[in-house]
């Protein structure tokens, strides 16, 4: 009896294992391959092209660099003309290093500001009654209905010396009629633009981390003698860390390379690598140097991306 009951499940397992095993394997392979193919075509290939350009020299030609790949026959000649002099140049001119550092600083400060503004919002959303939560999420996403460029442009209208903010301050009497707000074309304007534009990207991951938290954890902490504000630091905040990290990375990485906001709202002295890149590319038409700037920017951002990846793995 023991023997027969032993063999029965085995034969069962075998038949189910053979059934449709191939088609399942193929479809699984396809599902995995599609995103990789996407990445290969739209990320790896362009990156390799940029990297190649960064090793080239400027030329007054179309395209504005040499050498140009002319087939495998001349490949030895082609490779011998590539060198790293653009990268050396980046380290020689302090402008680039300062631009990188300034970008990282602006990204860091913006991310901290975003956390300070976004966390209470996300917390309030997560604690709101479940009937209005979808509406609140909708409201956070609502700005995406309008073009990003137009929304940043609108801030010029608010922040410029004779703009809406000045008018408002005049109207409520907080500012004399002869004074004007001097925010437009300063770093402050850049920070305002950054926080405004990236807020949804900070709020949504925070919200999703806070929303799935069991409220009875807070009650348990209160019950054990922990007052509410302390329970926040001991329970809520540590448990929302995955959301804090996700939101910070999602904001920090694109802010570092941000071009539109510093270009529209920043002053002449607002140094950001995105702007430098734009100048090299369109102003100086130095494609090889611009490519080198882009490659270095990417390498700089690999570090936070890896931190993010690591965190995601830990959560999983």
């Amino acid at each position: 009896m023991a023997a027969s009951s032993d063999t029965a499940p085995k034969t069962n397992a075998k038949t189910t294992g053979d059934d449709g095993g191939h088609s399942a394997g193929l479809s699984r392979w396809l599902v995995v391959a599609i995103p990789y193919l996407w990445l290969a075509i739209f990320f790896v290939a362009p990156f390799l092209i940029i990297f190649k350009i960064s090793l080239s020299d400027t030329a007054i030609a179309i395209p504005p660099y040499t050498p140009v790949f002319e087939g495998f026959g001349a490949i030895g000649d082609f490779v011998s003309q590539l060198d790293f002099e653009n990268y050396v140049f980046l380290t020689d001119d302090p402008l680039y290093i300062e631009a990188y550092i300034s970008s990282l600083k602006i990204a860091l400060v913006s991310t901290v500001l975003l956390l300070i503004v976004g966390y209470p919002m996300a917390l309030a959303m997560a604690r709101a009654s479940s009937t209005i939560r979808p509406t609140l999420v909708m409201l956070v996403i609502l700005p995406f209905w309008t073009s990003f460029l137009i929304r940043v442009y609108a801030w010029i209208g608010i922040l410029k010396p004779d703009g809406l903010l000045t008018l408002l301050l005049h109207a409520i009497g907080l500012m004399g009629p002869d004074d004007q707000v001097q925010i437009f074309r300063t770093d402050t304007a850049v920070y305002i633009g950054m926080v405004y534009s990236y807020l949804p990207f900070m709020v949504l991951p925070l919200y999703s981390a806070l929303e799935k938290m069991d409220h009875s954890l807070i009650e348990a902490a209160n019950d054990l003698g922990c007052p509410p504000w302390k329970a926040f630091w001991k329970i809520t905040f540590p448990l929302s860390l995955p959301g804090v990290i996700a939101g910070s990375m999602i904001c920090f990485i694109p802010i570092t390379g941000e071009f539109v906001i510093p270009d529209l709202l920043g002053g002449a002295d607002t140094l950001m690598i995105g702007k430098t890149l734009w100048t090299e590319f369109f102003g100086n038409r130095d494609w090889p140097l611009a490519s080198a700037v882009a490659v270095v920017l990417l390498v700089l951002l690999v570090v936070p991306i890896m931190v993010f990846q690591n965190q995601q793995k830990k959560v999983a």
Partner: protein
Amino acid sequence: MAKTLGPVKRKFSPWMDPAAEPFIRFENITKRFGTFTAVDNLTLDIYEREFFSLLGPSGCGKTTLMRMLAGFEEPTEGRILLQGKDISNVPPYKRPTNMMFQSYALFPHMTVEKNIAFGLEQDKLSKGEIAGRVEEMLKLVKLEQFAKRKPNQLSGGQRQRVALARSLAKRPKVLLLDEPLGALDKKLREETQFELMDIQHSLGLTFLIVTHDQEEAMTVSDRIAVMDKGVIVQVATPAEIYEAPNSRYVADFIGDINIVEAAVKETRSALGAPGLVELDSKGLSLAVEQECAAVRGDTVAFAIRPEKVRISADPPLDRSVNAVHGEVWDIGYLGDFSVFIVKLEDGRVMRAAQANVSRLVDRPITFGDMVWLTWPVEAGLVLTR
């Protein structure tokens, strides 16, 4: 079978003593959520060292009542007294009560040790004192080897123990248990029930447990309050609740019972004076020996527990017992008991349970047999509510 027996239990009934001061008093408590009244003008006394259960279906207000004692909800009206002091306005983090949550609410980012120490750290005890108390608690719930684990590395039963240890660590005056064993499987639940009783007994604490599981309430409690729609229907010991329910609701909620509508034909009983009550239920004559306020002509309910009904193929010899005749419609064999569903001559259905005292695979009474159901006059119940 329990592995180790705790100290022998003594009879405990402070509620019978008119001089005893209640430990917890709910005084005319009403709680409304919008237009919904969760608890309706409820008054209840709980005594020190009592193991008290709030029992009822979901939505009866039992959890709300407990949450008001913990401080998570404020009563709309009324006062809650703990040792004579009004605690209605004391925030939860200042109350000498601790709660074990239904979901356990263990802090997922802390180890077992840290979870248990959490409450003690809030009290700013010294490091050594905290470590000592944590160790004591781990020993109490037999989790010494698991001190460094995180909650997600534990089984459901172990998590339940951590939650218990954490809520006991501060030595609360009252421990509140919200469906504490709901997530455990049957065997583990039964074991844990006895452990809970032992812990309560050895620590000498007052336990208030909320449950919808009547068996659990029966096993662990000194007294049970059966609740329905925000009010208490009956407060009594498990035996009283089972044997002398005060209403159809309680009788039906606790255990299995046969209930039929009946009219009082003749009564020699009044309040304070037990006597024979004769009933007529659609032509069926029934007699019950009981203290009962119903008078002749009243419509009441007659109730009897299945295990108090004897089933036999032969008619009864004794004329004084209640007897009905019917056909065995169905049999539920439960191992220790068999439940017979008998269709009476008038079409009504009655259940009788019989302990399977002899080891027989083929029972003498089987489907389709004509049988007599009999019970003595003391076995049935007249329910006026």
